[in-house]
């Protein structure tokens, strides 16, 4: 796996890592991917993939008596920054002026 690919994955995952760590990560990912390649030995034509760990089927409830979410205050309290119950974050676009 070359650095270009590693950098792309880092960007997709929103991760920042030190330059000198990239070689290790690249080697390790390659080794793991080589190992899991083993699966290609198994024929899986016409096999339905498993989705999730459960055999339960989704049950919809009627849209009545919605549950009121009671933990709002706890969540606000955990947040990065708040002002008058508004959640506050740094600017999304940089202001270069």
């Amino acid at each position, binding site marked *: 796996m070359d650095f270009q690919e590693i950098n792309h*994955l880092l960007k997709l995952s*929103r991760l920042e890592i030190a330059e000198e760590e990239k070689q290790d990560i690249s080697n390790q990912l390659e080794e793991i991917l080589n190992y899991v390649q083993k699966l290609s030995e198994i024929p899986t034509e016409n096999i339905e993939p498993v989705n*999730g760990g*459960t055999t339960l089927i989704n049950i919809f409830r009627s849209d009545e008596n919605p549950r009121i979410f009671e933990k709002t205050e706890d969540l606000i309290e*955990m947040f990065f920054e708040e002002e008058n119950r508004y959640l506050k*974050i*740094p*600017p999304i676009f940089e202001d270069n002026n």
Partner: protein
Amino acid sequence: MSLIKNLHQKLIKKEVSAVDLVNQSFKLIEEKDKDLKAFITLTKEEALKEAEKIDKKISQGEEIDLISGLPFALKDNILTKGIKTTAASKILADYYGSYDATVFKKLKEKGAILVGKTNLDEFAMGSSTENSAFFTTKNPYDLERVAGGSSGGSAVAVSSSMAVFALGSDTGGSIREPAAFCGVVGFKPSYGSVSRYGLIPMASSLDVIGPITKTVEDARIIFETIAGKDEFDATSFDLKKEKNSKKEIIIGLDEEFLAEGVAEEIKEKFLSVIKKIEEFGLKIKNIDLTLNPYALSCYYIIMPAEVSANLARYDGLRYSSLKDTNFKNLEDIYFKNRGLGFGKEVRRRILLGTYVLSHGYYDAYYRKAQKVRRLIKEEYEKQFQQVDFIISPTTPTLPFKIGEKISDPLAMYLSDIFTVGANIAGLPAINLPIGFSKSNLPIGLQITAPYKKDFDLLDFSQQIEKLVNF
């Protein structure tokens, strides 16, 4: 046999008080935990208060539950309201649970007393607790060796009697492997039989919470307390307790499980148990789990894929954030918090998961693995038409030296080679201690049962436990 029942009797006969039990726990923690490092957070003050309440109940002649007044520990990826819940990660180092996990709520309602939160591999990713962002938990039988993981702290807390029982979580072996390394019982229930509400998710289709205890009967008592349908976990269900009417029990054994790579002493001990089982008159049948060697590959695609999605929530905004850092903009918050907040193994798995889910690789890796997962499930189902249980060693090796595998992720992953199958197929499986190596390190036996046959598995395990001990 049961430590829980034994202590309960002592409590109601007033031979010992709940405050005594809690004090005893903390005395052991003070003596031993500076070396063992099983606990991240201790809750002594609250524990003593709760114990006083239980003692008051007893003195007033009120009936108490079987687990009332008994000190227990929780793996630190299980949410506790107002108590630090870190998942052993820097990114959650200052996070306090904003609600109680269902399992914790259920234990509290029965009067069990939390003494602390235990160490784990960061976000439960690892087999040795060496991936904890804070410290490594040591094996009580040899301080130079690992306790196993990821529920290493919970296994050590029980093994060293710092807690009567503990909860762990198991995604690929994280209850059973540390239980095997520390010589205690570790039970991974059927997927969905215990609510995951309040468990910090790692791989949601594989994660399950279960007990770590001294005896099988204790594991059953705790399992019965925490199991059941929960409106906050859509995959949870009520397990029916059916009386097993079968006369003859047949045990499946795949000899491939004893092939190369399994430590000689584990093989010997395992075979001596097989002999005991046969002498007792139970039938052993050879089976072929031909796909088992592929379970780990399957796991190392599905698990990281789910990890990369589940851990996307740690954005440095909603839970906790790096202190004293200036952020240029919103993206900078993500990159810095996640880059500095996650440890190496977590980052590795996020990147791996992102890779196998990305355009162009999805079919070759993720979809392929989900197809093989179906085949593995079906193979287990087929084998369980001929046998009632499958036995194997729990781990291929004895507890290894601290540092031995930390720079070789693949070697570390292979610690779970016998345990991941049960997670891939959602099956209940248990570790039973079966003895010690010449160097006095614990050895474990794993028994796996068909989906939802958790109570049959516990019944049978009790039988094997007796056989092994006498």
